[in-house]
């Protein structure tokens, strides 16, 4: 096949621009069509070459003037160049389509300017001549100066002028640099200069510095970037898309090219400037309310990150292009898409994006872009993030990783906060009428994002998350199943619910045989347990837009997590379940801030896991999860700490727990049990895996499992304590989950067989009674319209089934015989007896009775006591919410009688890890341990008999009692200021609070809030650097260059 000459890209752009000048001013439509045709043709050429290079074609070199390279300007094109050219020209084409009205209004001149701008960026990518680079750069600057004026915002004028001022400075540095570099090397050709001894000469190194710093200045480095933010805020969104996605890409590539001349000496400077910009811009982004300015900060930050990566290209080696390209392309597509979206409505506050909710498709696209920017699977940034952290850690760049992850977390914060606004804030009444072509462009951008996701998956050395071509269908299906729900989201909720339940059950049946006992327990809870909870979802009517994709994404992640064979699959699954659950939690009425803190903590935890894996991999990524056992001794404790912290974020161990109560309590009725009963198990599964493989680890003299033991005990104690002081029933249950997870962690950290068995029992029990309690309390809350317990009371007669469920749940949970909780307790005490640490055990013992306190409060204040006047006509909770509760009741009874059903096999499985320890004897109806035996059936009978006797005796005593009508009591005439404070259920445990309240002071919450406020204030304060005065901006550019010079003096 004859490939078109790449000069044609330049010639087409220029020729078309000149041609437009020949047209009459009135022929605007023809001019517009010529523009589009030229851009399409330029994209076509780039696309053809990209295909050729992807097929393995060798890079080509094109000379001009019929003269060989160093003497005339030459172009070079390889895979990277072709990909970027395609990005540039396609983005430009879409932007031109997007700006149809503006372009037709302003006429042929603006179209010519647009074409020249795109041509010039293509030239920056292609040229190998440093002065030619300057010419193209100037073209871009001048064209930007014109394109900025497309905006209807009058302020754009000032922004454009500031840009021109700053570019004058850049020009001075660049030209001086170029001429001295020419003098030192005798050439203007980048490759010839790179091969020369230029840097060895005094002037040569300095000249190189000036060239480099001038090009970096085009990347809007902190602090010399105020002008760019002003442009982002005021320019036409179609231009901002170009400015962010295309121009920055060109400048980045120029820096990459020029760095060739500098060898390795200058790479740290690029990394330093890039990182500073990344972190500073993100912090300042925290304080932004204007959407376009926020996107500007984010753009600058992302470009800074890529610059930092360019500086690490020696370290990253082969994966450099994969990493830098992944982040850059994802950023470009997403940022262009978001800028285009911002032009679909007038209002400019972040909260005004709620208007998107009028079109679910747009919400889906919005989250696609946000996910691309934050590097979530399956988008390129995810693969790039993985590679980046592994590459850096393999070369011991720990600080770099820490700073990058810190910056990324801040970016996640403001992007997810924004997403929260879109989903949760009040939608405006008016409707925006978006022209079709604008929507089309946005949709195409999102589609491009998914294509990129697929391509990056193919390019990655690991599994392509979006590909069906994978040997094991069981690994592929979950995500595909979840994605299916994105397509069928328009169906009625009930139909989707049937499909979801059927899918989960079918998947469980298919996987059943391949599970080991541990996986079986977790798998049953996730898939079967999840399906039971979903029965309650039949209650919902309508479409329930967004619920099923989110829920299925979470379940897909969970299902994949437990079968993950290597670190990559594990991490990918972890991120998937995190995103899915985040969307689920966000659905709650008042859940916006809680969902935000959930996602921040979760992604922070995920970063810890990623770093832990990278540290453990030691250049061998991905590795089998099982080989965590073979991690080198010098890094093992750190791997252990990082992974444990990551997993404990999910189990909400004390200190990392503040996201949980709000997230679980504010979630929808059927979501609370999902995120509590099922999702928390992901963290436990991680901890299980960690302890199974790595076992005991010591950091210096400290036994890390002992630390976990303490954390577990403290979490149990404080979680229970805080639960006891809640007024909100769902919050009470949420805090109780924290405590329960503390128990499980404690059991695991005991590092003996019984401890693990106890933890497993908690896995099962906690799922059952927490799901049950959340459902029944949720049903009550639905009927009463409140979750405050002091507003309830006496519901026993009206909602008997809910009462039974709560009662059974409480009996099971508090470890009172005869239900399974007692079995848990029994194993638990056996486990404790066999462990050697007595002090944390006291804490655990202490938390037992406290646990009973909050459970008692729950049943007492909701169902017993006096019925409220306004509740007299209440009905039982809806059928579909009751149904799963009754299933749980039956199961609890069954499990109480034959606990061995599941545990026996697990016990045998655990023997593998503790071969020398005495386990439990499962033969016969009683279970025997070293310390005694547990005979479930006998206990059941004994308790039953006692209960009947006591009940009979009480009935006998009360045989003469007189019935009193409930509402005939006359209260005092005085009406208290806050009526609820007089209710007995208010501040139920006031005496205990007096004694123990100091322990539930929100120290941890205050700590994290303090950090958040400090960062926010820092951002708000430091953004005042950008005074808006063009002269100040120019001066900042001067300061930047001089400071960079001082910093780099060692290199010159």
């Amino acid at each position, binding site marked *: 096949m004859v490939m078109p000459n790449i000069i044609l890209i330049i010639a087409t752009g220029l020729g078309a621009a000149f041609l437009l000048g020949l047209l009459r001013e009135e022929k605007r439509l023809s001019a517009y069509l010529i523009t589009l045709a030229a851009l399409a043709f330029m994209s076509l050429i780039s696309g053809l070459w990209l295909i050729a290079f992807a097929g393995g074609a060798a890079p080509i070199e094109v000379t001009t003037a019929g003269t060989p390279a160093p003497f005339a300007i030459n172009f070079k094109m390889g895979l990277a160049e072709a990909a970027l050219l395609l990005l540039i020209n396609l983005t430009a084409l879409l932007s031109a389509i997007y700006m149809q009205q503006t372009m037709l209004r302003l006429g042929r001149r603006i179209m010519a300017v647009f074409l020249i701008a795109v041509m010039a960026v293509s030239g920056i990518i292609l040229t190998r001549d440093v002065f030619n680079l300057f010419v193209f750069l100037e073209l871009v600057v001048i064209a930007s100066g014109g394109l900025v004026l497309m905006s209807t915002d009058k302020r754009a004028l000032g922004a454009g002028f500031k840009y021109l001022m700053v570019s004058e400075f850049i020009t001075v540095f660049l*030209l001086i640099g170029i001429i001295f570099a020419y003098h030192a090397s005798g050439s203007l050709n980048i490759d010839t200069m790179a091969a020369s001894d230029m840097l060895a000469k005094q002037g040569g190194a300095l000249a190189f510095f000036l060239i480099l710093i001038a090009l970096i200045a085009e990347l809007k480095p902190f602090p010399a970037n105020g002008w760019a933010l*002003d442009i982002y805020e005021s320019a036409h969104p179609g231009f901002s898309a170009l400015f962010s996605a295309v121009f920055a890409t060109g400048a980045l590539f120029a820096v990459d090219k020029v760095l060739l001349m500098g060898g390795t000496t200058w790479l740290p400077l690029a990394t330093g400037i890039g990182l500073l910009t990344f972190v500073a811009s993100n912090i300042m982004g925290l304080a932004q309310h204007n959407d376009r300015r926020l996107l500007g900060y984010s753009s600058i930050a992302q470009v800074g990150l890529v610059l930092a990566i360019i500086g690490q290209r020696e370290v990253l080696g082969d994966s450099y292009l994969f990493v830098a390209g992944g982040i850059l392309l994802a950023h470009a597509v997403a940022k262009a898409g978001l800028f285009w979206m911002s032009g679909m409505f007038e209002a400019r506050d972040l909260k005004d994006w709620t208007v998107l909710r009028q079109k679910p498709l747009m919400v889906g696209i919005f989250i696609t872009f946000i996910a691309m920017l934050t590097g979530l699977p399956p988008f390129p940034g995810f693969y790039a993030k993985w590679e980046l952290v592994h590459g850096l850690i393999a070369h011991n760049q720990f600080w770099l990783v820490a700073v990058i992850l810190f910056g990324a977390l801040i970016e996640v914060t403001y992007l997810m906060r924004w997403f929260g606004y879109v989903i949760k804030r009040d939608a405006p009444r008016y409707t925006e009428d978006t022209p079709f072509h604008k929507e089309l462009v946005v949709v195409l951008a999102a589609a491009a994002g998914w294509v990129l996701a697929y391509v990056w998956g193919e390019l990655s050395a690991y599994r392509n998350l979006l590909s069906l071509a994978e040997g094991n269908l069981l690994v592929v299906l979950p995500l595909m199943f979840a994605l299916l729900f994105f397509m069928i989201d328009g169906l009625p909720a009930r139909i989707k619910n049937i499909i979801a339940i059927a899918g989960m059950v079918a998947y469980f049946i298919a996987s059943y045989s391949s599970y080991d006992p541990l996986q079986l327990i977790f798998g049953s809870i996730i898939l079967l347990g999840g399906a039971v909870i979903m029965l309650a979802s039949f209650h919902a009517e309508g479409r329930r837009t967004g619920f099923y994709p989110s829920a299925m994404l979470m379940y897909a992640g969970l299902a994949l997590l437990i079968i993950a064979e290597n670190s990559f699959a594990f991490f990918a699954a972890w991120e998937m379940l995190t995103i899915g659950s985040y969307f689920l939690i966000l659905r709650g009425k008042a859940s916006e801030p809680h969902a935000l803190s959930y996602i921040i903590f979760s992604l922070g935890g995920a970063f810890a896991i990623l770093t832990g894996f990278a540290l453990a991999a030691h250049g061998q990524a991905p590795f089998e999860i099982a080989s965590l056992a073979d991690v080198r001794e010098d890094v093992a404790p750190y791997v252990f700490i990082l992974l444990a912290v990551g997993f404990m974020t999910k189990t909400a161990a004390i200190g990392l727990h503040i996201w949980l109560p709000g997230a679980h309590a504010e979630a929808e009725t059927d979501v609370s049990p999902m995120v509590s009963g099922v999702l928390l198990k992901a963290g436990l599964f991680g901890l299980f895996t960690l302890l199974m493989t790595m076992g005991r680890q010591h950091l210096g003299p400290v036994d890390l499992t002992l630390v976990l033991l303490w954390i577990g005990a403290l979490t149990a104690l404080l979680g229970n304590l805080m639960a006891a002081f809640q007024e909100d029933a769902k919050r009470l249950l949420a805090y109780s989950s924290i405590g329960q997870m503390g128990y499980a962690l404690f059991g695991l950290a005991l590092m003996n067989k019984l401890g693990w068995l106890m933890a497993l029992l908690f896995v099962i029990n906690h799922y059952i009674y927490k799901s049950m309690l959340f459902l029944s309390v949720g049903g009550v809350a639905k009927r009463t319209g409140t979750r405050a317990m002091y507003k309830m009371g006496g519901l026993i007669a009206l909602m008997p089934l809910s009462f039974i469920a709560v009662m059974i749940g409480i009996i099971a949970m508090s470890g009172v015989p005869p239900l399974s909780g007692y079995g848990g307790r029994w194993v638990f005490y056996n486990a404790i007896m066999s462990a050697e640490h007595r002090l944390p055990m006291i804490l655990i013992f202490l938390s037992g009775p406290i646990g009973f306190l909050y459970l008692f409060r729950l049943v007492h204040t909701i169902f017993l006591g006096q019925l409220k006047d306004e509740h007299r006509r209440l009905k039982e909770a809806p059928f579909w919410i009751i149904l799963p509760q009754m299933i749980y009741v039956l199961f609890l009874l069954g499990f109480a009688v034959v606990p061995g059903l599941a545990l026996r096999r697990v016990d045998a499985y655990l023997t593998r890890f503790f071969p020398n320890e005495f386990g439990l004897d499962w033969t016969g109806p009683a279970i025997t341990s070293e310390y005694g035996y547990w005979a479930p059936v006998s206990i059941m009978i004994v308790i039953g008999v006692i209960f009947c006797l006591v009940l009979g005796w009480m009935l006998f005593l009360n045989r003469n009692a007189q019935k009193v009508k409930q509402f005939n009591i006359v209260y005092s005439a005085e009406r208290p200021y806050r009526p609820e404070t007089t209710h007995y259920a208010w501040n139920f445990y006031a005496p205990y609070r007096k004694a123990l309240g100091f322990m539930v002071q929100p120290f941890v919450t205050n700590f994290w809030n303090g950090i958040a406020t400090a960062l926010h204030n820092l951002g708000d304060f430091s953004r005042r650097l950008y005074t*808006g*005065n063009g002269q100040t901006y120019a001066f900042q550019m001067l300061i930047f260059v001089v400071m960079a010079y001082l910093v780099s003096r060692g290199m010159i």
Partner: protein
Amino acid sequence: MSLVTLAMAGGFALILIGLYGALNNRNILRIIIAFTLANTGVHLVLVAVGYMPGRTAPILDAAVPVDQANALIIDPVPQALVLTAIVIGLGVTALMLAYALRLFASRHTLDISKFTELKW
């Protein structure tokens, strides 16, 4: 002091004077003037770098036969670059002037510190 050093030092001084003016004059027109000074300084430095004492302009004529050109002429490359740079500089200047007119039309002032409605 040689001619080259003189020209180059003069060029650098001109750049510094120009940038100083651009940073300290509030009037937009004066800022643009200052930038043209700095540009002229840059051009001077560029040409000075290409100069070689004792040689002549890179034009082949009776005084410079083709076969001796290599030994007689100065480096032509910086001159070619400066030609380009001068024209580009003019382009930027013209653009800034057009901006100045529009800015003036919008606020009836040319004081740069009055155009700070975009910030932070």
